[in-house]
């Protein structure tokens, strides 16, 4: 392997979360391995795991790169309780996440309107899981909290960026175009307002 590929391997090994592409680029710039580019080194590392028979693989996710174990060993690892798979999300939680992913930033009232069910408890638990966060406040009555997905969402759903989700017009039923023009994929949404309790959001679902 080239020196840069080895350096990247070490960096990726040292991190428990995906290493942002920017961080890797910075490392590559300092490594002074003039011959190899970051992209070629990553590809080299990926092929190294791919071809030489390894238990791990290099995965591009959430705007960065990460070394993950291969799926075929998951059960064996779990059996001896070295690691446990995270719990699945409920259908209601997934629906809420899907709506937020496409319509962010979005307030609670709008989510409830689409799903036809109260969303307070689900929003709270999704936020606790770090999948969504408050990204601002709306203009409307009571300045409702607006939610957006986090980079942890991308990570847990094996997405490189939000654009990897099917575009609205690619879905079988294309109805409303998603409101977001250019979703920020790599940077997690910056919480503007303090994520306190959702107050003044009691806008009734009138339609």
């Amino acid at each position, binding site marked *: 392997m080239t020196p840069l590929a080895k350096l990247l391997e070490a960096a990726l090994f040292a991190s428990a979360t995906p290493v942002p592409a920017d961080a890797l680029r910075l490392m590559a710039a300092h490594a002074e391995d003039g011959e190899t580019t970051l992209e070629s080194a990553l590809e080299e590392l990926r092929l190294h795991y791919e071809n030489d028979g390894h238990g791990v693989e290099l995965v591009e996710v959430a705007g960065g790169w990460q070394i993950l174990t291969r799926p075929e060993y*998951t059960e064996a690892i779990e059996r001896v309780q070295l690691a446990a798979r995270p719990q699945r999300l409920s259908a209601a939680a997934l629906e809420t996440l899907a709506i937020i992913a496409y319509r962010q930033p979005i307030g609670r009232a709008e989510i409830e309107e689409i799903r036809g069910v*109260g969303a307070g408890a689900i929003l709270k638990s999704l936020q*606790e899981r770090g999948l969504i966060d408050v990204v601002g406040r709306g203009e409307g009555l009571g300045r409702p909290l607006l939610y957006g997905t986090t980079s942890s969402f991308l990570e847990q759903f094996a997405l490189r960026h939000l654009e990897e989700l099917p575009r609205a017009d690619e879905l079988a039923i294309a109805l409303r175009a998603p409101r977001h023009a250019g979703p920020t994929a790599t940077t997690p949404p910056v919480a503007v307002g303090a994520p306190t309790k959702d107050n003044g959001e009691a806008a009734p679902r009138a339609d």
Partner: protein
Amino acid sequence: MDDVTTIHSSSLAVADSAASEVFVVELAEYSGPLDLLLTLIRDEQIDIYDIPIARIAEQFLDRISSLKLDEAADYLEMAARLVRIKAQMLLPRREGEDVWEDPRAELVRRLLEYQQVREVVDVLERRSEDRRSRFARAYTQAAVQLPVAGPLVISLPELLSAVDRVLRLARKPHVHDVVPRALDVDGAIGIVRALMAIRARAQWKDIVPRKAEPWEVLSLLLALLELAKRGELRLAQPRAFAAFEITRDPSSEAA
């Protein structure tokens, strides 16, 4: 191993476990009234753009009462909406009115929108399964440990000279004799009063004798403060670090 399998099978209602204060109705079968409605439409193989609203409304009501869901406000709201649309459908259409607006249109729009959400959920579910089947390195910050010192390498003379150095540094404790000589504040008050009886104003140096013992100085100081507190005299300092002036308090004189 049985534990592991049970964890996997209990996939429902994870997200709502945190909500203790809110009553949340969530079944494994339906994630909401729209889901139930969509299921009915799918089961009956109905064209979503032409829903036989009377039939669907009836089935919806049947289903929620059989599931004991009739208490859940969200389901009830949908039931009410269906009944209202049904009523609107029964109203005779007026001749000559330009466009007849289908009362079901809003419901259809919502159902289609919801179906889109379900599609995305399928994608998310696949993705999440893919990710769940891989582990990242479980990095935990190790507790900070101080480096353990190795065995001491030192010769006997070195050790002895070190001991000597320590002993020389540790000087003998300074033994101090405490002479019991209590402050005589009452006596000092007498002195100050006597002086102020003959003088209208005085200064510190007038009161304290030249070669006063510390206890005398302290007694006089406390006496002055005491008398000032009682209001018999006034202490004033014209400016910082200047000698302060002691004057008889005019108000106490009057009294």
